[in-house]
């Protein structure tokens, strides 16, 4: 069964990818989508089994992999509660994205390639979540990286897409450096890379130190931080986040699947999977908390000034991943996974809905050229509203809430309840980020669906109008009146709307339905069954936090909504005034805290300059100059000198003979 779930997408990817133009669009799409629907249908019973609490962890061996000395690595598929959660997330979102792409990619010339990549991605992601050892996890880790690279650069004629794809791969590799060295250190310390064996031995390592790069540190701190570097790369945490916004160059369904719901959460999954290791190092957990909280805040601030609809959601993803990390950092792994679970639904929904908007607006992605779309694309509008209610965490405690209400509030409460200084700080930062989240989410809604239509300023729309109204004059008169330019956005086809509706259900109900098993102190222990470090005590403490803590998230949400409403509905000229007034701050945010500029200068320009220097000055200017070229020059010179001495004049030879004799005599006497 689990073999089918994992390998069907691979098989489909191979058929669609290698068959490509030979089997045609429809066959390729049907094979891949069919495979994913089957995988999804098989995954839910597995998950439900674990919900019912009747499943223990199982490991299905597949094939021998690397055996070298003490290192024993095999391909195998591990299923436990944590895997089951990821299985349903991955296969459900992937299946829906496959279906959605029938509509979204309908006019693309290379659809088999697209669907093959999507399925390949799903396979790699499933290998990641079912891994029983660190090396197979790394296989999945890199496999999703490859798929992400291929899909970001799917439209390979676009230079920006290629640049973004390379950036994503290389930045991720920086994280992978940490992951790999973490694996080496793990093997050296534990003598194995099998996850259950490591987790069992990890607590015994507390207090042991290891030498690393000249210093001496706690073993578990070194290993966890190295692995966490990998998590930071994949999950776009502060410092290694720069690839994620650029990844929006890929087609929107890709953003929904890879850069929102699944791949980017791999880092969170890894930390949860290895939670007993992280529990063994206080320092590592503090770092995780700080990085998570900092990312949550940083990304939220940047999201408030973005005008590209996808980039707003991308920064939002980055920020939400930060929430998951600081949840893990304070020990609330259940809450981290719960937020991962709900986030997958509502964030995939937001992206797919954004895709539907983009589809309706003829590839225009700039929200400044949107407006008034509420009545034109009502299904998309309501889906977007559902997603926004979920992400901003709307709900009333004890009655009903949208998905994010349960998961995000749980994270904030757990951070507060953890009682540590770092936890409390993370809580405060989280509340501020929640306010910003609400602000940018509603800003997106208001700019897109409310206010007057601002479509005519868009080049994309003008192209569409030009094509449609070629030779007709009345369209332009119309434009002057209401800003629509006579353009008629159409609601997306059914194959795009159905996934939106299904995900909307997830965004509305996922929190309410699943909060018990994921978070409840008693149910949680039965549900997780030790597949992550479930801290029942913390989950219990969470409910005992003061009322103001419980209300703070809702208050932040309302405040954000109010500000967004005031700035984008009540007085639409306010944002411009604000920008005028705080130009410095705005510049700082619009340049995304100048990370890209800095990295570009130091690493990209620096790397190329250093390479050129080593090539010209090092290889050519030093090694060759004094090495082979120098040597041959010396030989050539000395042979020329030699040749000149063979002059044919007796007196030259006589002089040389005399000098030689004198020299020989001198040597004899001296010795």
């Amino acid at each position, binding site marked *: 069964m689990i073999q089918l779930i994992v390998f069907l997408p691979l098989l489909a990817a191979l058929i669609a990818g290698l068959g490509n133009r030979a089997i045609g669009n429809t066959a390729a799409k049907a094979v891949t989508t069919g495979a994913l629907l089957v995988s999804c249908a098989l995954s839910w019973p597995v998950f439900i089994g674990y919900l019912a609490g009747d499943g223990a962890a199982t490991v299905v061996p597949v094939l021998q992999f690397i055996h070298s000395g003490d*290192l024993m690595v095999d391909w195998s598929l591990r299923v436990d509660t944590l895997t089951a959660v990821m299985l349903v997330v991955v296969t459900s979102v992937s299946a829906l994205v496959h279906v959605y792409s029938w509509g979204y990619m309908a006019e693309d010339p290379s659809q088999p390639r697209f669907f093959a990549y999507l399925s390949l991605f799903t396979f790699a992601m499933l290998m990641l979540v079912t891994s029983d050892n660190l090396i197979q996890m790394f296989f999945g880790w890199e496999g999703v990286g490859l798929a992400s690279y291929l899909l970001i650069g799917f439209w390979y004629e676009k230079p920006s897409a290629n640049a973004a794809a390379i950036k994503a791969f290389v930045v991720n590799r920086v994280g992978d450096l940490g992951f*790999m060295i973490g694996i080496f250190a793990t093997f050296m310390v534990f003598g194995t890379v099998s996850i259950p064996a490591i987790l069992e031995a990890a607590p015994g390592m507390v207090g042991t130190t290891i030498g690393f790069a000249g210093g001496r540190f706690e073993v578990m701190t070194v290993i966890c931080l190295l692995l966490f570097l990998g998590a930071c790369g994949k999950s776009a945490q502060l410092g290694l986040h720069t690839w994620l916004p650029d990844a929006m160059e890929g087609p929107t369904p890709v953003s929904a699947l890879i850069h929102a719901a699944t791949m980017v959460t791999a880092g969170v999954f890894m930390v949860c999977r290895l939670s007993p290791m992280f529990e063994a190092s206080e320092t590592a957990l503090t770092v995780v908390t700080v990085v998570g909280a900092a990312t949550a805040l940083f990304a939220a601030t940047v999201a408030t000034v973005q005008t590209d609809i996808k980039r707003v959601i991308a920064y939002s993803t980055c920020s939400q991943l930060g929430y998951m990390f600081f949840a893990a950092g304070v020990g609330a792994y259940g809450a981290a996974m719960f937020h991962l679970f709900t986030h997958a639904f509502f964030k995939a929904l937001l992206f797919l809905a954004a895709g539907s908007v983009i589809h309706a607006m003829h590839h225009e992605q700039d929200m400044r050229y949107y407006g008034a779309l509420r009545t034109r694309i009502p299904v998309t509008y309501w889906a977007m509203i559902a997603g926004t209610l979920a992400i901003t965490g709307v709900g009333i405690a004890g009655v009903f809430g949208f998905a994010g209400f349960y998961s995000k509030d749980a994270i904030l409460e757990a951070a507060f309840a953890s009682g540590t200084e770092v936890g409390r700080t993370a809580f405060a930062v989280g509340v501020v980020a929640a306010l910003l989240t609400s602000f940018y989410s509603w800003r997106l809604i208001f700019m897109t669906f409310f206010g007057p239509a601002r479509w005519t300023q868009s080049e994309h729309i003008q192209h569409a109008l030009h094509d449609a109204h070629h030779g007709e004059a009345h369209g332009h008169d119309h434009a002057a009146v209401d800003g629509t330019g006579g353009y008629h956005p159409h609601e997306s086809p059914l194959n795009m709307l159905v996934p939106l509706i299904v995900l909307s259900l997830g965004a509305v109900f996922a929190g309410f339905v699943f909060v018990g098993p994921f978070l409840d102190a008693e149910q949680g222990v039965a549900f997780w069954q030790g597949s992550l470090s479930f801290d029942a005590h913390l989950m219990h403490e969470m409910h005992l936090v003061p009322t103001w803590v419980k209300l703070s998230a809702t208050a932040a949400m309302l405040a954000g909504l109010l500000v967004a409403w005031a700035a984008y509905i009540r007085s639409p000229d306010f944002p411009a005034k604000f920008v005028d007034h705080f130009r410095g701050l705005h510049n700082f945010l619009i340049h995304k805290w100048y990370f890209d500029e800095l990295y570009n200068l130091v690493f990209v320009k620096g790397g190329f300059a250093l390479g050129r220097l080593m090539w010209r000055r090092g290889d050519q200017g030093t090694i060759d100059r004094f090495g082979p070229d120098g040597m041959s020059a010396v030989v050539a010179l000395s042979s020329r000198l030699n040749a000149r001495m063979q002059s044919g004049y007796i007196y030259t030879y006589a002089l040389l003979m005399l000098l030689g004799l004198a020299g020989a005599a001198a040597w004899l006497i001296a010795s």
Partner: protein
Amino acid sequence: MNGIPILSIMLLVPMVAALACLYASAGNARRIALGATLLDLALGALMWAQFDVSGAAPQWQFVEFHPIFGRFAWALGIDGIALMLIMLTVFLMPICIAASWQSIQKRVPEYMALFLVVEVLMIGTFSAQDLFLFYIFFEAGLIPMYLIIGIWGGPRRIYASYKFFLYTLLGSVLMLIAMLWMAHEAGTTEIPVLLNHNFPVGAQNWLWLAFFASFAVKVPMWPVHTWLPDAHVEAPTAGSVILAGVMLKLGGYGFIRFSVPMFPQASEALIWVILSLSMIAVVYTSLVALVQADMKKLIAYSSVAHMAIVTIGLFAFNQQGLEGAMIVMLSHGLVSGALFLCVGVIYDRLHTREIDRYGGLAENMPRYALFFMLFTMASIGLPGTSGFVGELLSLMGIYQVSSIATVVCTTGIILGAAYMLYLYRRIVFGALTKPDVKAMPDLSKREIAFLLPIALAVLWMGIYPESFLRPMRADVATLVARVAQAKPIGDAQLAVSTVEPADAGAEGAHQ
């Protein structure tokens, strides 16, 4: 099976074919060469199938011993390490012949004959059990390669071939002197005996350095690598394939066959040389690769970086490091060979190696794009391809010796991704605008026929490396045991820390 001298036959087949080629027409020479190399591949496969990997098997198999004069003997025999490298050689040879099928039109019989001679010499080097037989095969390989570059090479072929010759010869003189001393000291030239001979510790450093001079050039290690980019750039495609695929492995083979087991104390004392040169090589040549405008030069520099991962693995003194180094060698042989073939494919169409002349090939050459992507990913070391297994093991091995070296060398995975993806992006991606590039046809059947086997081998080694690890396991274990025993007591600077739970002040993981 033991009665048949299969190694001698494998040497004889290409030798006879080489002579036959000289007297054949161009067309026949091609066919003879292909036939002979395929026959050798079949013999190699037979030998692999017959190779005994069980625990009870002797270390040296398919042994032949015929004294010729004095101490000199026709002594052949292989262990698992040599077997794998011979397999690499016989696997790449028919591919080289197929790749030269159309692109070589000048002096075809001589060209084919030289390739067959190369095959003889490479197999000879890997199977020689006599010190001087090894030396002859090892050094003679220089001659056909020198001719291949010098006759069928590009415009600067004379410069490149002289540079190649100069570098390689310099080291080999020192190696010969060391070998003469060793034969005198140990009283034998049999390699299996020498492997267990304990040379005086005082002499080991000098011997080690003499061998190092030869092997470091062959590998090549920084800073004696500058012959490689020039040789590759000027060599014909198949020449590059054999150069990168097999000849660079001679250096690595030398280290694992001579330097490490024969001079363990010196290997330990001089490990800092290997580690520091390898660390420099990874970072330096990767950055240099990044700024190359010539495809072949870029891949040549990347070879230097990859071979640095081999050298650190070889000196890790443990199973993972040594097996990793071997797998990197095999993988690099396949992958860099395939990358040079990929370059050759488009060079044959447009006759330029300048990267910027291409672009957008994904559009008109989708099959090519797929193969090139696979080999690019294998070069980057993506898990699932051969490159990953070797890199992982090799770096894992060296981590137990030096964490600093590991951190520096692992940056190769970042830099490697940067220069390879940047190369791929400029050749295959982007808009297809140039008219002559637009006119390039996709892979022909012949081209698929020589790329597909490499692709399958790369995936095989990446997904089920056990096939390749198993034959070497016992031999590497013997080597590790040999090195461990020879370790002088109290040499703490290389001692790997084994962290015990109770011991908070355990010895460091690095020097």
